[in-house]
């Protein structure tokens, strides 16, 4: 968008020669002098883009299409027994497999509950930090570090011990005379522990909120203060509308990430999704079906439905933005 064809015209004829001299070219091309400036730029553009193009077709687009095709087969690793079974995988998924719906329930609960809470935490802390608080840098670091570590196995391991029968949390509750239990070992609370882990990583959206809050023009606050608007009014009528695009952005990132949560669940539940399927996340079931049971066709169908779910969720968040996201015209 910054580049214009005016720039292309300014490129000197020598430039391409010096860059290309002595290098073998992938394909034959007409004598250099026959090339116009814009052709030269196009050639250079595709030359620079080559690794990405190979990656895009080889590792992204073709696998994606292959996954779609596989989802209509019973492929289990051997090409000799593979059969086209139409929508059978989808039918099994939606009407037969109870584990599938369990995983949908678990994943949606996780996203719908933990994402809003995480964003509220992120926004609250960002707002407090934005008040010209001392030691801002230190706070920022402390709040951010968990989101850097949140998806690591080490933290998931730690979580198992914090929320376990004899874990840290119960020891703390003990001090208050509350008798705990194995939070991770109980079907009612196992998912909760993973949601808390997600909320714990609010630092990354917080950083984005902080950047957004800094963009809110101070004049708006001053004008509102002159009009006698209190702290709360200013937050609801100035801060929130001003950063609503940032909320949308953070929301979409968090939703997309939430649907793909895997490492924490795998480690916390030992790869089982237990107890009693209470942490059977969609991605975990997909992993089990694919690499545990070698039902690659079925898992591919699951992956495509996940793609559609994420696409629909993203679209829904975007669409809802029409009603609450405010893109200031006068700014």
């Amino acid at each position: 968008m910054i580049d214009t064809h005016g720039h292309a015209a300014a490129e000197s004829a020598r430039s391409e020669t010096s860059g290309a001299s002595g290098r073998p070219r992938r394909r034959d091309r007409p004598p250099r002098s026959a090339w116009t400036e814009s052709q030269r730029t196009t050639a250079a553009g595709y030359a620079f883009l080559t690794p990405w193009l190979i990656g895009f077709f080889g590792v992204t687009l073709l696998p994606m299409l292959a996954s779609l095709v596989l989802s209509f087969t019973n492929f289990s690793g051997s090409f000799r027994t593979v059969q086209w079974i139409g929508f059978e995988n989808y039918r099994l998924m939606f009407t037969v497999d109870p584990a599938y719906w369990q995983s949908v329930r678990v994943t949606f609960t996780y996203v719908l509950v933990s994402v809003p809470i995480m964003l509220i935490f992120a926004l609250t802390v960002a707002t407090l930090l934005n008040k010209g608080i001392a030691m801002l840098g230190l706070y920022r670091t402390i709040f951010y570090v968990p989101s850097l570590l949140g998806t690591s196995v080490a933290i998931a391991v730690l979580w198992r011990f914090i929320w376990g029968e004899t874990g840290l949390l119960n020891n703390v509750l003990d001090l208050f005379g509350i008798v705990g239990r194995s939070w991770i070992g109980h079907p009612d609370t196992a998912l909760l522990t993973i949601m808390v882990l997600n909320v714990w990583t609010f630092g990354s959206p917080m950083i984005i909120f902080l950047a957004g809050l800094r963009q809110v023009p101070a004049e708006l606050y001053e004008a509102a203060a002159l009009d006698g608007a209190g702290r709360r009014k200013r937050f609801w009528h100035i801060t929130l509308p001003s950063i609503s695009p940032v909320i949308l952005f953070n929301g979409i990132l968090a939703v997309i990430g939430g649907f793909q949560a895997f490492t924490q669940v795998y480690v916390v539940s030992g790869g089982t999704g237990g107890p009693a399927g209470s942490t059977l996340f969609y991605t975990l079931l997909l992993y089990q079906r694919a690499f545990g049971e070698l039902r690659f066709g079925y898992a591919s169908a699951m992956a495509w439905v996940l793609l559609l779910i994420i696409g629909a969720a993203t679209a829904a968040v975007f669409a809802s933005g029409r009603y609450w996201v405010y893109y200031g015209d006068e700014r």
Partner: protein
Amino acid sequence: MTTTALVRRRHRTVPYIARRTFIHVGLVSAAFVMVYPLLWMTATAFRPSEQALIEDSLWVPQPTVENFVQGWNAVGQSGFGVFFLNSFIVAGLAVIGNVLSCALAAYAFARLPFRGRKFWFGLMIGTIMLPIHVLLIPQYLLFNALGWVDTFLPLIVPKFLATEAFFVFLLVQFFRLIPREITEAGRIDGCGHPRIFIRLILPLSVPALTTAAAFSFIWSWNDFLHPLIYLTSQSNYTVPIALSLFVDSSGTSNYGALFAMSLLSLLPVIGFFLAFQKLLLDGISTTGLK
């Protein structure tokens, strides 16, 4: 800090100071709750193993490194030395691959008005949102057919093909800000695109490249799913896989050693963060990298 001082001078009233104190108390307690698990893990790693799980305090009267010694040699025949080396190899090559290939693509997208640019750029942006699970199975079948399973290749080769579109996007944003005049001058001096890219764009983009490199390292270091699928023999395990194996096999109940190794596994990430703190936080602010 100066603004804080100014604000203070303007508002030196009792309710104002009370509110400030209240906010600070809130933030300090929140921060403490946030880091307590990490501090506890650190304390536990240095505590004699038999007290590992019964102590909640952060105070370790007699710190010991015994847990580290035991953990280092604990899992299988390989030990954590091998796992750390594997992780460093994989993450190191991921950094090189990502930075090189993403910078090349970003240069094309940001500075070369070639035909079809908008089309490809749109597709590139589209891949940012793509859940990896859609690609996982065919990629596995592909790499399996190539005989790459149980090697590092499936973890490394895609990084050399700019598949992490976030980094392309980050670098595009940055390259666009480099003034036209600078590259224009290069062209007049007779530089071709490769030379402009290497001599002008890359040196001017060191902060952005460092951001991409640091995130690339951290993501690759933390990655669990791909090594889980591709690495089968123990001598090839990366640290996360070894740790999860350790948990599952720790009927041995050597929790101290487990915590020691978990702590060690976080150090490179924390180290990278502390070294490039400002760059990383700016990177998140502008592009939403995790």
